[in-house]
Protein backbone atom coordinates (compact mmCIF):
# COMPACT_ATOMS: atom_id res chain seq x y z
CA UNK A 1 0.00 0.00 0.00
CA UNK A 2 1.42 3.34 -1.08
CA UNK A 3 -0.07 6.78 -0.62
CA UNK A 4 0.40 10.50 -0.26
CA UNK A 5 -2.05 12.09 2.16
CA UNK A 6 -2.77 15.49 3.61
CA UNK A 7 -4.42 13.86 6.63
CA UNK A 8 -2.64 12.55 9.73
CA UNK A 9 -1.10 9.12 9.02
CA UNK A 10 -3.24 6.32 10.39
CA UNK A 11 -0.96 3.94 12.25
CA UNK A 12 -3.55 1.32 13.09
CA UNK A 13 -4.74 0.87 9.53
CA UNK A 14 -1.11 0.50 8.40
CA UNK A 15 -0.58 -2.12 11.10
CA UNK A 16 -3.73 -4.00 10.08
CA UNK A 17 -2.58 -3.94 6.46
CA UNK A 18 0.91 -5.40 7.08
CA UNK A 19 -0.17 -7.96 9.65
CA UNK A 20 0.03 -11.45 8.23
CA UNK A 21 0.35 -14.90 9.76
CA UNK A 22 3.27 -15.61 7.42
CA UNK A 23 5.39 -12.83 8.94
CA UNK A 24 7.90 -13.39 11.70
CA UNK A 25 8.91 -9.73 11.72
CA UNK A 26 7.05 -6.48 11.19
CA UNK A 27 9.18 -3.35 11.10
CA UNK A 28 7.84 0.20 11.33
CA UNK A 29 9.80 3.38 10.64
CA UNK A 30 8.30 6.79 11.36
CA UNK A 31 9.87 10.05 10.24
CA UNK A 32 8.76 12.78 12.65
CA UNK A 33 9.10 16.54 12.87
CA UNK A 34 12.09 17.51 15.02
CA UNK A 35 11.88 20.69 17.05
CA UNK A 36 15.25 22.10 16.10
CA UNK A 37 17.62 22.09 13.17
CA UNK A 38 21.25 22.99 12.60
CA UNK A 39 23.13 23.80 9.41
CA UNK A 40 26.93 23.63 9.25
CA UNK A 41 28.50 26.63 10.97
CA UNK A 42 25.15 27.97 12.11
CA UNK A 43 23.48 28.00 15.53
CA UNK A 44 20.66 25.61 16.42
CA UNK A 45 17.29 26.99 15.30
CA UNK A 46 13.88 26.22 16.74
CA UNK A 47 11.47 24.88 14.13
CA UNK A 48 7.88 26.16 14.32
CA UNK A 49 6.54 23.74 11.71
CA UNK A 50 7.38 21.95 8.46
CA UNK A 51 5.46 22.41 5.23
CA UNK A 52 5.55 19.42 2.87
CA UNK A 53 4.65 19.56 -0.78
CA UNK A 54 4.62 16.68 -3.29
CA UNK A 55 4.26 16.10 -7.01
CA UNK A 56 1.65 13.57 -5.98
CA UNK A 57 1.30 11.48 -9.12
CA UNK A 58 5.03 11.11 -9.72
CA UNK A 59 5.77 10.64 -6.02
CA UNK A 60 3.42 7.66 -5.89
CA UNK A 61 5.05 6.20 -9.02
CA UNK A 62 8.54 6.65 -7.59
CA UNK A 63 7.51 5.06 -4.29
CA UNK A 64 6.06 2.15 -6.27
CA UNK A 65 9.42 1.68 -8.03
CA UNK A 66 11.22 1.64 -4.69
CA UNK A 67 8.78 -0.91 -3.30
CA UNK A 68 9.15 -3.11 -6.40
CA UNK A 69 12.92 -3.06 -6.12
CA UNK A 70 12.74 -3.84 -2.40
CA UNK A 71 10.41 -6.78 -3.11
CA UNK A 72 12.93 -8.17 -5.60
CA UNK A 73 15.84 -7.86 -3.16
CA UNK A 74 14.17 -9.06 0.03
CA UNK A 75 11.43 -11.45 0.99
CA UNK A 76 8.68 -8.92 1.71
CA UNK A 77 5.17 -10.20 2.34
CA UNK A 78 3.46 -6.85 2.91
CA UNK A 79 4.53 -3.24 2.88
CA UNK A 80 3.13 0.22 3.51
CA UNK A 81 4.70 3.53 2.47
CA UNK A 82 2.74 6.67 3.36
CA UNK A 83 3.97 10.25 3.14
CA UNK A 84 2.06 13.20 4.48
CA UNK A 85 1.87 16.67 2.93
CA UNK A 86 0.80 20.06 4.23
CA UNK A 87 1.67 21.79 7.49
CA UNK A 88 3.08 19.56 10.24
CA UNK A 89 3.87 20.56 13.80
CA UNK A 90 6.74 19.32 15.96
CA UNK A 91 6.22 15.66 16.88
CA UNK A 92 3.87 14.86 14.00
CA UNK A 93 4.57 11.94 11.66
CA UNK A 94 5.67 12.90 8.15
CA UNK A 95 6.37 9.46 6.75
CA UNK A 96 5.62 5.85 7.65
CA UNK A 97 7.36 2.80 6.22
CA UNK A 98 6.27 -0.68 7.31
CA UNK A 99 7.45 -4.06 6.06
CA UNK A 100 6.42 -7.58 7.03
CA UNK A 101 8.94 -10.37 6.35
CA UNK A 102 9.49 -13.94 7.54
CA UNK A 103 12.69 -12.99 9.41
CA UNK A 104 13.98 -9.76 10.94
CA UNK A 105 17.11 -9.26 8.81
CA UNK A 106 15.03 -8.72 5.68
CA UNK A 107 12.73 -6.32 7.54
CA UNK A 108 15.58 -4.11 8.83
CA UNK A 109 17.43 -4.07 5.52
CA UNK A 110 14.34 -3.46 3.38
CA UNK A 111 12.99 -0.76 5.70
CA UNK A 112 16.31 1.05 5.65
CA UNK A 113 16.53 0.81 1.87
CA UNK A 114 12.99 2.13 1.39
CA UNK A 115 13.33 5.22 3.59
CA UNK A 116 16.85 6.05 2.33
CA UNK A 117 15.81 5.76 -1.32
CA UNK A 118 12.57 7.67 -0.72
CA UNK A 119 14.51 10.59 0.72
CA UNK A 120 16.88 10.61 -2.26
CA UNK A 121 14.53 10.27 -5.21
CA UNK A 122 10.84 10.85 -4.48
CA UNK A 123 9.60 14.31 -5.54
CA UNK A 124 8.57 15.64 -2.14
CA UNK A 125 9.85 18.89 -0.64
CA UNK A 126 9.87 20.34 2.85
CA UNK A 127 10.18 23.87 4.08
CA UNK A 128 11.34 24.58 7.61
CA UNK A 129 9.42 27.48 9.09
CA UNK A 130 11.00 29.47 11.93
CA UNK A 131 9.70 32.42 13.91
CA UNK A 132 11.81 34.72 11.74
CA UNK A 133 11.72 33.13 8.31
CA UNK A 134 11.74 29.86 6.39
CA UNK A 135 14.02 27.70 4.26
CA UNK A 136 13.49 24.95 1.69
CA UNK A 137 15.54 22.07 3.04
CA UNK A 138 18.66 21.13 1.01
CA UNK A 139 17.67 23.41 -1.88
CA UNK A 140 21.02 25.21 -1.95
CA UNK A 141 24.60 23.90 -1.80
Amino acid sequence: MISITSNPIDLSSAYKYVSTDEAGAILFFFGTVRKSTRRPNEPLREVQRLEYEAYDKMAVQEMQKIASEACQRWNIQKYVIVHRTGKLLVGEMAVLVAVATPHRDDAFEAGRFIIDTLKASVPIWKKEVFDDGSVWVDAHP
Partner: protein
Amino acid sequence: MPKELIVQLFGITREIIGARQIEVEASSASRVSDLLALLRDRYPALGGLRSLLVAVNGEYADPDQPVSVNDEIALIPPVSGG
Protein backbone atom coordinates in the same frame (compact mmCIF):
# COMPACT_ATOMS: atom_id res chain seq x y z
CA MET B 1 -2.95 23.05 -31.41
CA PRO B 2 -1.28 24.73 -28.40
CA LYS B 3 2.13 26.26 -28.95
CA GLU B 4 3.25 26.39 -25.35
CA LEU B 5 4.89 23.86 -23.11
CA ILE B 6 3.29 23.90 -19.68
CA VAL B 7 5.79 23.45 -16.87
CA GLN B 8 4.56 22.56 -13.37
CA LEU B 9 6.46 24.08 -10.47
CA PHE B 10 7.00 22.80 -6.94
CA GLY B 11 8.78 23.85 -3.76
CA ILE B 12 11.46 26.47 -4.15
CA THR B 13 11.02 26.73 -7.93
CA ARG B 14 7.37 27.67 -7.39
CA GLU B 15 8.51 30.42 -5.02
CA ILE B 16 11.34 31.66 -7.26
CA ILE B 17 9.11 31.90 -10.32
CA GLY B 18 6.03 32.93 -8.35
CA ALA B 19 3.50 30.60 -9.97
CA ARG B 20 2.32 26.98 -9.84
CA GLN B 21 2.99 26.58 -13.54
CA ILE B 22 4.41 28.57 -16.43
CA GLU B 23 4.10 28.45 -20.18
CA VAL B 24 7.12 28.38 -22.45
CA GLU B 25 7.07 28.80 -26.23
CA ALA B 26 7.49 25.29 -27.61
CA SER B 27 9.56 26.66 -30.50
CA SER B 28 12.20 27.89 -28.04
CA ALA B 29 12.76 24.57 -26.25
CA SER B 30 12.75 21.25 -28.09
CA ARG B 31 14.73 19.30 -25.49
CA VAL B 32 14.99 19.18 -21.71
CA SER B 33 18.41 20.89 -21.84
CA ASP B 34 16.99 23.80 -23.89
CA LEU B 35 14.14 24.23 -21.44
CA LEU B 36 16.50 24.30 -18.45
CA ALA B 37 18.83 26.79 -20.13
CA LEU B 38 15.92 29.04 -21.03
CA LEU B 39 14.46 28.98 -17.52
CA ARG B 40 17.86 29.56 -15.87
CA ASP B 41 18.33 32.53 -18.16
CA ARG B 42 14.90 33.95 -17.32
CA TYR B 43 15.08 33.20 -13.60
CA PRO B 44 18.74 33.45 -12.53
CA ALA B 45 17.93 32.32 -8.95
CA LEU B 46 17.36 28.81 -10.36
CA GLY B 47 21.11 28.67 -11.02
CA GLY B 48 21.80 28.79 -7.29
CA LEU B 49 20.03 25.52 -6.54
CA ARG B 50 21.95 22.38 -5.60
CA SER B 51 20.35 20.57 -8.55
CA LEU B 52 17.52 21.09 -11.01
CA LEU B 53 15.93 18.23 -12.92
CA VAL B 54 13.00 17.92 -15.28
CA ALA B 55 10.33 15.22 -15.20
CA VAL B 56 8.52 14.37 -18.41
CA ASN B 57 5.25 12.47 -18.04
CA GLY B 58 6.08 11.59 -14.45
CA GLU B 59 9.59 10.23 -15.11
CA TYR B 60 12.98 11.85 -14.54
CA ALA B 61 14.23 12.93 -17.97
CA ASP B 62 17.71 13.05 -19.51
CA PRO B 63 18.96 16.42 -20.83
CA ASP B 64 18.67 15.32 -24.46
CA GLN B 65 15.10 14.02 -24.15
CA PRO B 66 12.68 15.87 -26.47
CA VAL B 67 9.76 17.80 -25.00
CA SER B 68 6.49 18.66 -26.70
CA VAL B 69 3.25 20.46 -25.92
CA ASN B 70 1.54 17.14 -25.24
CA ASP B 71 3.95 16.20 -22.45
CA GLU B 72 3.34 16.71 -18.76
CA ILE B 73 6.46 18.59 -17.74
CA ALA B 74 7.62 19.47 -14.23
CA LEU B 75 10.66 21.19 -12.77
CA ILE B 76 12.17 19.14 -9.93
CA PRO B 77 14.34 21.07 -7.43
CA PRO B 78 16.40 19.11 -4.84
CA VAL B 79 14.02 16.70 -3.09
CA SER B 80 13.76 16.65 0.70
CA GLY B 81 11.03 14.22 1.67
CA GLY B 82 11.10 12.09 4.79
